[in-house]
């Protein structure tokens, strides 16, 4: 699983870089077209918006793998040993449940958008909507990886003596 996740997170990384660059160039080009050539692109805003959704979804998944999401660590960092492990597992399970809803319902939703064409580009809206289920599938995978690591470190003899902090 770790290998698959390595591949997908590297894919995320590259896609995010390319998309941020593209989004910047598209919006900048839009400004130039409007003020210099007086002929704005009709599609620039739409492309920018959907790139942003892809960046946000993929970035959210990437941030799950590398623990970059903002959380309140005020109380949770005081938890030790088994309690910390148990709380961590419950959190992971809840994240998986939520992600599963976003994945399954999101997939359903995006498939229904197949006939729906976007306003400017006339491309199926599917390609914008599918960012959500795609990324939440990744989030489920990454969370499972965190859980597996948590269980492994809990099982290791060192932490059973209570010398190590939880996950």
């Amino acid at each position, binding site marked *: 699983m770790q290998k698959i996740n390595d591949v997908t997170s590297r894919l995320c990384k590259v896609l995010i870089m390319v998309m941020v660059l593209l989004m*910047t160039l598209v919006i900048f080009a839009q400004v130039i077209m409007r003020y210099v050539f007086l002929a704005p692109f009709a599609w620039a805003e739409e492309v920018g918006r959907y790139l942003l959704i892809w960046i946000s979804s993929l*970035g959210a998944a990437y*941030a799950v793998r590398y623990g970059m999401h903002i959380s309140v660590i005020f*109380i949770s960092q005081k938890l030790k040993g088994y309690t910390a492990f148990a709380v961590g597992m419950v959190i992971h399970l809840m994240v998986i449940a939520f992600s599963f809803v976003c994945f399954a*319902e999101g997939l359903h939703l995006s498939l229904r958008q197949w006939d729906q064409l976007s306003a400017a580009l006339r491309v199926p809206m599917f390609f914008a909507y599918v960012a959500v289920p795609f990324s939440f599938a990744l989030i489920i995978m990454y969370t499972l990886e965190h859980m597996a690591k948590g269980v492994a470190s809990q099982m290791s003899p060192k932490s059973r003596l209570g010398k190590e902090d939880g996950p």
Partner: protein
Amino acid sequence: MIMTITVVGLLTLMAIGVPIAWALGITAFGSLMLMGVPLHTIPQKLFSGMDCFPLMCIPFFIFAGEIMAVGGLSTRLLNFALLFVGSFRGGLPIASVIASMIFGGITGSGIADASALGAVGIPMMKKAGYGQTFAAAVVGAAGCVGPIIPPSIPVVVYAMAVGGVSIGGMFAGGVLPGILIGSLLMILCYVLSRRRNYPKREQRISPREFLVGIKDSFLAVMTPVIVLGGILGGIFTPTEAAAVSVVYAFVVCYFVYHELKLSELPAMLLRTGVTSAVVMIIIGTSNILGLVVAFEQMSVKLGVILKPMGYYGFIMTVNVIFLIWGCLMDMNPAILILAPIFAPIAMLLGFHPIHFGLIVCINLIVGLITPPLGEILFIVGPMAGISLEELSKEILPFILVEIFALLLITYFPFFTLYIPQLLGYIR
């Protein structure tokens, strides 16, 4: 009933350390299930929350900040300010506040402001004998001015969440509060430097030095002129201005200053994408929870309690609630969830939307430097190599000054409404 479950559930999840984005989503998921709302609304609301053109300025402002910090723009802003105030007592901290304010005219994020100026200002102040704790406190407190002086990410998020208020108008309204807070911080720097007898630069700046300095920093100082002038003059939308500032910063740092290497670009693109994604996904999941808030008519229910307090009682309650929230929590969920509940009540009590919006935003921005969870403290503290306790003690007078400014802004609508009136945002 569902309202109670939602509130308690959300606070519990956040307290046990569920990342805020997921805490919002999970709570909304639970509440919507209890209410029997079909679950396909969850991804739909998540999507529609993020599908918004003005929000695109978030990645652009973050990107521009990344480029300017690495590419030598922040050093030049500081040098520029030093040309004018360098020979006063406390000249360096005062210059650092000024540089922060100019940087605030480019970036919309306090964290970007504090980290860009911190990387330059803290070592400089340390070398000049100011002490690293003081240096970190100055840079941190001045960082708050970044998102108050337009452009501003919290303002964009607020305008999106609440609606019915123009981003440009709120930007214009942030100008005077930003200058007010900046000036008060400068006065505080001067007073503290005198009282503690901090060193003063002995030699004066020669006219030649002055001219060379102006020439070197001219292109850097022009950035906020383009961004701010463009937005307030109605030439660009905030999103376009942000994209232009990215390209401008890149051109200046790469072609003119030669301090930016192309090999650094991929890492910057990734950091920009992920940092914005972390904010964007919170906006998305808040939008799901917003559905629960709307269904449950929380604003109406809360209005029954808050409206009898009257204008001043209400705004005092708002100040206290948002200040406490700002001490404990990230500001975006507060803007996205609390603000839409409070704003309609404020409108009924006769607040101007721009005035109320800025009160909320500035309230939460002050939370960036309040312990225990001021995000800026976690950035400037490690930069100066000091503990959170030391920094918290040193930054206290700065926090008090900012709260004083906040009260002025709250009780005198002049500060937030004068410039929007001048520019025709209010008729």
